[in-house]
């Protein structure tokens, strides 16, 4: 058996470990081990590559030391509330790496191709790696900026936006064609010029495609960028004709696509609508705004109701993360449990700024996994819930999505908190949510508003409970 066969066998082993790792990530019991299995696959792939061919290691070691130090430091320091922007940024780095791999391969082979013939599959793959990798990189940087609020997270729209973007895509495609045709042209500039233009256009496109997407649509964008980073790796795999890159890249590409579809479905919108409409930037005059009187409540009254509740469901949204209220929420949950109340936490699929983000925050606050329930699990049981406590969520609990065909969110699946006997809504004011529409929930007969900062409101209720105990 020669060395190359051994390397290929190692790549197969690595691919199998990636597959098992991903599989194990889909269950809470096995997820942590799954991540280790997948990391072991990565280690095997790296080692096989390093010993598989003649290489000089000095630059590799330098790169791994720098990247490892930066990556490890960032990963161990990032607070859980910042997870969305962190994952967005890392997606971008993956995209950038794939772009650079394509570019390096092009640079390396240029002298050979200029004298003979260029393999077209490789050349096309280089172009695709540059295009997807480049737009993933800048798109992720913009997503990072919006999520960390270093730049305005509102959708940026201007007249003719889609025409501009379409024009850029068209020019980029022309660059790819010119680049591929001229890859074996003895005049190096004939292929290098369109390649550099392509890279520049990909970077610009990433920015322009991401700015029209508003803050609360970010779960879709991150999922999509996640998918792109996988596809970019896949393209890089075609560049260097490497199976493990293609398999692992496809798995990530597919998983990102599935998450994207789940997020879109949870908002009852098409992917095209999320990407191009700039939802939330324009004030949509939809829905018959039901006016009525919102009934405020004091922490003391809230306590009296909670004291007698047999089952309580917390429904967190982005506001909980923004107010850093997850720890006091868990504390309140524990006090209620000691009082004999059944406590659950119901999370909407698009609550927060990335898929599953609220669950991570609650887990960080020591909420046991079995108390975290999905929307489809809690809704049928909602009528037997005594108190539903909405913390910083708005559109995902708006009954207009179910009742008002004129509303712009009509048809979106929601958590039916209004079916609970009593609903507490913790909110700063009566302001509308991301979709820019009134929330009928606030004016329902069984709704009580607990105005103020979510964290201090919950703390006030806890204090009432402790005083009495």
């Amino acid at each position, binding site marked *: 058996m020669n060395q190359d066969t051994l390397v290929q066998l190692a790549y197969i082993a690595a691919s199998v470990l990636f597959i098992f790792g991903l599989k194990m990530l889909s269950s809470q019991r096995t997820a942590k081990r799954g991540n280790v299995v997948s990391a072991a696959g990565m280690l095997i792939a790296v080692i096989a590559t390093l010993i598989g061919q003649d290489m000089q290691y000095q630059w590799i070691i330098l790169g791994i030391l720098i990247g490892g130090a930066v990556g490890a430091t960032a*990963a161990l320091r990032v607070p859980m509330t910042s997870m969305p922007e962190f994952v967005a940024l*890392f997606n971008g780095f993956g995209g950038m*790496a794939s772009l650079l791999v394509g570019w390096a391969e092009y640079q390396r082979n240029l002298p050979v191709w200029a004298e003979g013939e260029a393999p077209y599959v490789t050349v096309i793959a280089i172009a695709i790696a540059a295009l997807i990798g480049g737009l993933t990189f800048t798109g992720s940087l913009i997503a990072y900026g919006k999520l960390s609020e270093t730049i305005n997270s509102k959708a940026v729209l201007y007249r003719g936006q889609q025409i501009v973007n379409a024009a850029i895509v068209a020019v980029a495609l022309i660059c790819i064609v010119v680049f591929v045709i001229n890859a074996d042209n003895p005049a190096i500039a004939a292929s290098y010029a369109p390649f550099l233009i392509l890279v520049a256009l990909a970077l610009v496109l990433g920015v322009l495609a991401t700015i029209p997407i508003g803050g609360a649509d970010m779960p879709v964008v991150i999922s999509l960028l996640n998918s792109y980073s996988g596809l970019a790796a896949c393209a890089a795999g075609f560049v260097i004709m490497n199976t493990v890159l293609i*398999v692992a890249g496809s798995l990530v590409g597919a*998983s990102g696509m599935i998450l994207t579809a789940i997020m879109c479905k949870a908002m009852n919108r098409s992917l095209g609508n999320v990407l191009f409409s700039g939802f939330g930037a324009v004030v949509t005059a939809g829905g018959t705004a039901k006016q009525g009187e919102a009934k405020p409540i004091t922490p003391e009254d809230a306590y009296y109701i909670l004291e007698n509740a047999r089952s309580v469901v917390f429904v967190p949204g982005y506001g909980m993360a923004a107010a850093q209220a997850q720890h006091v929420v868990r504390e309140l949950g524990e006090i209620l449990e000691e009082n004999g109340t059944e406590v659950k936490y119901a999370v909407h699929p698009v609550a927060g700024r990335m898929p599953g983000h609220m669950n991570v925050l609650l887990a960080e606050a020591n909420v046991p996994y079995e108390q975290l329930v999905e929307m489809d699990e809690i809704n049928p049981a909602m009528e037997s819930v005594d108190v539903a406590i909405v913390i910083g969520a708005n559109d995902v609990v708006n009954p207009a999505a179910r009742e008002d065909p004129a509303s712009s969110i009509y048809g979106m699946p929601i958590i039916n908190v209004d079916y609970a006997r009593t609903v507490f809504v913790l909110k700063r004011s009566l302001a509308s949510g991301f979709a820019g529409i009134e929330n009928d929930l606030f004016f329902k007969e069984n709704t009580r508003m607990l105005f103020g900062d979510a964290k201090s409101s919950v703390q006030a209720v806890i204090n009432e409970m402790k005083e009495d105990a």
Partner: protein
Amino acid sequence: MSSEILLLFTFVLAIFLGFELISKVPSQLHTPLMSGANAISGVTIVGALVAAGSLAEGAFSVVLGTLAVVFATINVIGGYLVTDRMLAMFKTKQHGGDK
């Protein structure tokens, strides 16, 4: 069959495999799934190593390759570590739901 076609074949099968693998993940685990998948996408490090290690073929491609190694390593190391950190927080009650 040419090797290009075989690679394409692998690609198509792996995409379908990915769809099958991921479609049943509970929404509670979506964040760790995404960051774990993100770490896997750092597999492009394999290509980066090849580029950074071939010094004989010109300095510029080594510069590009080394940069690629840096980005991909951040992606791999950071991605796996942060996923591990997150998953360690998901505990069932028996193993200590309370502090």
